[in-house]
């Protein structure tokens, strides 16, 4: 599963990280893609993404995970940020109930801009701070079930469930893609990768190339 082969992949899945500012999106990303954790990371400015290729069965899936600031205000990038995303991790800080209370708002924004088939996981981050927990696990799980979301509690600090969370999402996406492939239906939401080695461009990138060219 964890094999990293940048050049060899069958699929590129765009996954976005969303959630309130300070819930740990960037550290989840760095933990998953680089196995790093920054204790004094600052608020994210702008937009970044990181990739990691994982093996799902026999298929190499390249996860292209996007991260941006968890700002409430509308941003011009919102549309572009969600465009082409086939998976999303909606992160909240389980030690700050406020970040959980606004999950619904994030969900709405997600569904407003992303494909309806997008795979969404609700992630309660900072599970290492159990003594400061403000959001009960059951409450979050119930919410996730009621809204058709996956759910996990993670800790970017001690790596708990970080891999599992991303891989679960990727598997779910892969399952959907496989199903679609079987039906020989392509959805825009899924980047169909081709098995061509060395091709790293996602759909957006392809377009960019085409446009630029």
């Amino acid at each position, binding site marked *: 599963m964890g094999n990293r082969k*940048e050049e060899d992949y069958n699929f590129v899945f765009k996954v976005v990280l969303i959630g309130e500012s300070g819930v740990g999106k960037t550290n989840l990303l760095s933990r998953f893609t680089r196995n790093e954790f920054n204790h004094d990371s600052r608020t994210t400015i702008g937009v970044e993404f990181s990739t990691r290729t994982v093996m799902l069965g026999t298929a190499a899936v390249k996860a292209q995970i996007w991260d941006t600031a968890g700002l409430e205000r509308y*941003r011009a990038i919102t549309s*572009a940020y969600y465009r082409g995303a086939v998976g999303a991790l909606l992160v909240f800080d389980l030690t700050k109930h406020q970040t959980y209370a606004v999950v619904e708002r994030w969900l709405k924004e997600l569904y407003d801009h992303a494909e309806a088939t997008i795979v969404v996981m609700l992630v309660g981050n900072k599970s290492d701070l159990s003594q400061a927990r403000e959001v009960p696990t059951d409450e979050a799980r119930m919410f996730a079930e009621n809204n058709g979301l996956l759910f996990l509690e993670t800790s970017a600090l001690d790596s708990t469930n970080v891999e599992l969370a991303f891989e679960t999402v990727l598997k779910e996406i892969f399952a959907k893609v496989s199903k679609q492939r079987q039906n020989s239906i392509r959805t825009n939401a899924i980047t169909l990768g081709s098995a061509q080695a060395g091709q790293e461009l996602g759909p957006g990138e392809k377009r960019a190339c085409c446009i630029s060219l």
Partner: protein
Amino acid sequence: MSLAASADRGPGSLWSPTHVQVTVLQARGLRAKDPGGTSDAYAVIHVGKESTPPRCPSAPWAPPVWRECTSVFSIPDLLPLRVHASSAFHHPAAHVLHRALLDLDKFLGRAEVDRELHRDQGRRKTQWYTLKSKPGKKDKERGAIEVDIQFMRNNMTASMFDLSMKDKSRNPFGKLKDKIKGKNKDSVSDSASAIVPSVTPSADSDDESSNKDKKKKSKIKTLFSKSNLQKTPLSQSMSVLPTSKSDRVLLRPGDFQSRWEDEDNEDDSSSTSDIMTHKRTTSADSKQLNQINFSLSKKEGLSFLGGLRSKNDTLSRSNVCINGNHVYLEQPESKSDTKDSSPSSSPSPQGFTRKHLFSSTENLAPRSWKEPGEAGGVASDRQPSESSTQDSLKSMSLPSYRPVASGDVRGNMAPGNLETAKETKESKKQENKKPSLLSLVTGKKDVTKGSEGESPATIPVKEKEGAPPEIKPKQDGLEPVKDVMRQSEKDTPALVSGRGKSLNPFEEIQITEPEAEPESRTEPKPPVLSARAPQTKAVKPRLHPVKPMNTTATKVANSSLGTATIISENLINEAMMKKYNPSDPAFAYAQLTHDELIQLVLKQKETISKKEFQVRELEDYIDNLLVRVMEETPNILRIPAEVSKKAGKM
């Protein structure tokens, strides 16, 4: 007396100034730093490390004439036990800074005035000093400032030291006391302090002593506040003193702990004090007063009145042991009286306080105080009038204020209380408006009367000029003193928006008339929040009293220019300044007036909003750029490490 005493002692021997009072009178030829060609100049006085926060703001126009730009410094190397005539006296240097609202103050020049002082200790000098550049910088034409320097000495503090110092060793203190006592005998007045020539020597001595006392008190307070251990000494000292009521002694330590507690205690003491006051009134012993003062100083460094009175009485009377209770009671009363706050205090308490005051004044009079004698006479006259609180208030107020206008007038005024009473009320109101400090000062003045005449006068004059018109109408309507006081309080808030602290105490007074006296005590305290606070308070009172005392000329200028609001602002500023060390970045802002601070805040807010707008615009711009990047070349958004790999691959 103080002058004579000092002269007799001679500069080298006994005359060892403990404090130096530096007054910056005016400046000329300052460099213009404002676009308009003027400098909003003020002066900061530094004595050794004791860079003072005395803000000496001048009107924005040039040339600056400073009002109340006086500060008193303790001479660093003078220890209570040893007074060195040749003590290393740090150079008092007056820096004239150009005050810019947003920027750090600009340096206009500095004058070193120490040397002459050193040689001429025990003297008072007023002279022009040429402003120079900072060491190592080019000399420019910076103009000159006129500085008045006066060396002072506090005898009162000795008693204070005894109380506080008992723990360490009585011997040194005892020596000090002996010295002081001897000095006092010579001077006839306990408070006798060797002050340089002043218009009214007695007044100067009082002021100086008060200042010194304050300082000492503050020190004592700090000690107590800092450590509980020190409290015990207080209690001990209290016990040593006549203690019919140990309870109060206990309470005072608590007072040290917290102001609020103090207030409560005061209230308690006030209730008890009523009884005590009667006793006192019956027999107002200067000794008792002194003792009380001591206890007060320990308990409350803030209460200037107590300190002042104590100063007056303390030196000679320290020997006598009075009932602790009486002492305590007297103190609160005396405080209320001095504050003029008396107006605020309930009639009965006032009566008591008045009686006490009278007693105290009377005591002083026999001692050979000229002015005190006058005061005593007034007091005696008024004692009978205790039944009529207003009259008593008037009488109280009259002595204090009139001295300001003219010391002689006081005695005359006292008889014709009614006419002057209004004025006094006004002045009282003004004083009320000003923080407790003014009231304290006035109260002190009352006690000292003659000696303080000049210096206190200046302050009251200012107050009167500024505030009276506003206050009078209300006062006229309300005959009852209490009502007047309340009104004055109300007025004060309107006049002075800055001093929330001072207002609170007043409010308390209003609520509890009988307890007004204790509350008055509390008033001074509120400003001083913590251990440090006492010191700061002490400093504040010093500045005002000191300023007026120093130079009549400055007084006149002050009276003409000063307004109640200005004074209040100054007080507030001083309070603020006290809290900050020169090294503290906030120190620069502590020198700003309330209005200036408001302007500063508004400007900052404006700039912040502008910045926020700019930030938003930048964010939008970045977002738009990002959108383009995401649509065209998302790869460059990949986190660097990865990008580099890709780049290599590419």
